[in-house]
C-alpha cells in the first residue's frame, strides 16, 4: 500500500516563508489537488515533493521511509512536469521523447515511445523538429514523457494550461488510468479535471509572521 506523505513541512524561498508546518498524505490510487491563490506556494510545494528543493524542516516519506535516505531510488519513482516544457527545439519530437525514455529506463524497443506519442496524438509529426511545435503541442510532448516509463508518483504543475479541450480529456484519461494502476498524482491546477480526488488548500499554511518584537532580545 504505497503512500507518499509529508509532515510539518516548512519552506523558505527568497527570504520569504512560503508555507509553514504543512502536512499532507496521498495513498495509492489517489489524486491530490493543490489549491490556493497565485504565489501561495503550489509550485514550490511540488518542487519540494520532487526533491528539487530542501525544506527548512519537516520530513517527506515514501512508504514511510524518508526519501532523502536513497534519493536515487525516489527520483526513479517520480515524474515531474514543471511550468517549462523541457523540449530541445533542435531535436525532433521523437528524439526528444526517446532521450528521456532512455534516460529513465533502458527500454529497447521503440514501441513504448510510439505508443506514448499516439496517446497524446503527436505521432503524425514525430520526425518534425520541435521548434515547429505550438505551445500546446510542446506541453503535450512534455506530458507524453509520463507514459513512456512507469513511475508511481506524478507531480504535475499546471499541466492543463495551453492545452485545448480534447487534449485535456486525454490528460484526464491518462491520470485515471494511472490511478487504476495504483499510481499517486499531485496536481497544481485551476482547471477542475473531473477526476476523483481530495484537495489541499496551501494558503491555510502561510500564517507565519515575524512580529516586530522578534529577536529584539539582544
Amino acid at each position, binding site marked *: 500500500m504505497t503512500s507518499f506523505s509529508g509532515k510539518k513541512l516548512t519552506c523558505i524561498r527568497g527570504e520569504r516563508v512560503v508555507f509553514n508546518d504543512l502536512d499532507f498524505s496521498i495513498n495509492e490510487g489517489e489524486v491530490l489537488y493543490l489549491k490556493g491563490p497565485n504565489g501561495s506556494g503550489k509550485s514550490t510545494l511540488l518542487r519540494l515533493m520532487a526533491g528539487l528543493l530542501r525544506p527548512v524542516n519537516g520530513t517527506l516519506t515514501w512508504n514511510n521511509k524518508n526519501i532523502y535516505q536513497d534519493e536515487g531510488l525516489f527520483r526513479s519513482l517520480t515524474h515531474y512536469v514543471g*511550468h*517549462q516544457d*523541457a*523540449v*530541445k527545439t*533542435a531535436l525532433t519530437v521523437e528524439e526528444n521523447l526517446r*532521450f528521456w525514455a532512455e*534516460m529513465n529506463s*533502458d527500454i529497447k524497443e521503440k514501441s513504448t515511445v510510439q505508443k506514448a506519442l499516439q496517446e497524446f496524438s503527436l505521432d503524425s509529426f514525430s520526425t518534425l523538429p520541435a521548434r515547429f511545435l505550438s505551445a500546446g503541442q510542446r506541453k503535450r510532448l512534455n506530458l507524453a514523457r509520463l507514459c513512456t516509463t512507469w513511475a508511481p508518483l506524478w507531480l504535475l504543475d499546471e499541466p492543463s494550461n495551453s492545452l485545448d479541450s480534447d487534449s485535456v480529456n486525454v490528460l484526464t484519461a491518462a491520470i485515471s488510468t494511472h490511478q487504476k494502476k495504483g499510481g499517486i498524482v499531485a496536481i497544481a491546477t485551476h482547471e477542475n479535471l473531473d477526476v476523483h480526488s481530495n484537495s489541499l488548500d496551501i494558503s491555510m499554511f502561510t500564517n507565519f509572521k515575524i512580529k516586530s518584537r522578534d529577536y529584539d532580545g539582544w
Partner: protein
Amino acid sequence: MAGKSIQVFFKLIQREILLAIRHGSDSCMIVLFFVIVVVLFPLSVGPEPGILTRISAGIIWVSALLSVMLSMDRLFQSDYEDGNLDLLILASEPLELIVLAKTVAHWLTTGFPLIIISPVLALFLNMDTSGYSTLLIALTLGTPTLSLVGAIGAALILGARRSGVLLSLLVLPLFIPILIFGVSAVDASLTNLSSKPQLLILGGLFLAGLVLCPWASAAALRQAAE
C-alpha cells in the same frame, strides 16, 4: 546498474554533440575567435619573427584559454532556460555523472577543434617545429581541465545578471595555474630542455579536476535549481 550509468553517460554526450551539430555554427565561431585573437598579436606586437617566436607559446595559450572561457557560459544556460535542468537533476543518474558528460561533450565541440588548429597558428607565429609536439600534448592535457573548471563557473552564474562577464571574472584566476604550466611546458621544449615535469603537473591538474570539478559543478547546479 553501473552498465546503465555508462549507457546514460554516452547517451547524454551523443545528445549534446547532436545539438552542437544541429547548431553547426557554435564551434566554428569559437575556432574563428581563437584564430582572430592569435592574428591580433603580430598586428600589435609587430611581425619581426624574433619577438613572435619568443612569445608564441604564450599567445597560443592565452587565446586558447579565452576561447574556452568564451564558450563556457552557454554550457548550462540553454538547459536552465528551457527547463531541461530540472529534469537532469531529477534523473535517476547522479548529477555529477551528467555534468561530466556535458563537460566532455563541451570539450569535444570546442577544446578539441582548438587543438587541431593550434599547429597552423604556431606556424603563423613561426614557432620552430621542436615545440609543436609539446604544444599539442600540453593543450590536450590543459583544455579538458579548462572545461572542467569552467563548468563550475558556468553552473554558478545561472540566473545571474550579466553572466558572460561575471563568468570570466570568476574563472580566470582559477585558470592561471594551467596557463603557467602549459606555457612553460612549450617554452621548455623550445629551448630543448625536457618539458616532462610541466606535462606531469598538467596531467595531475587534469586528474584532480576530473574528480573534484564535477562534484562542485553539481552542487552549484542543485542550488541554482532551488
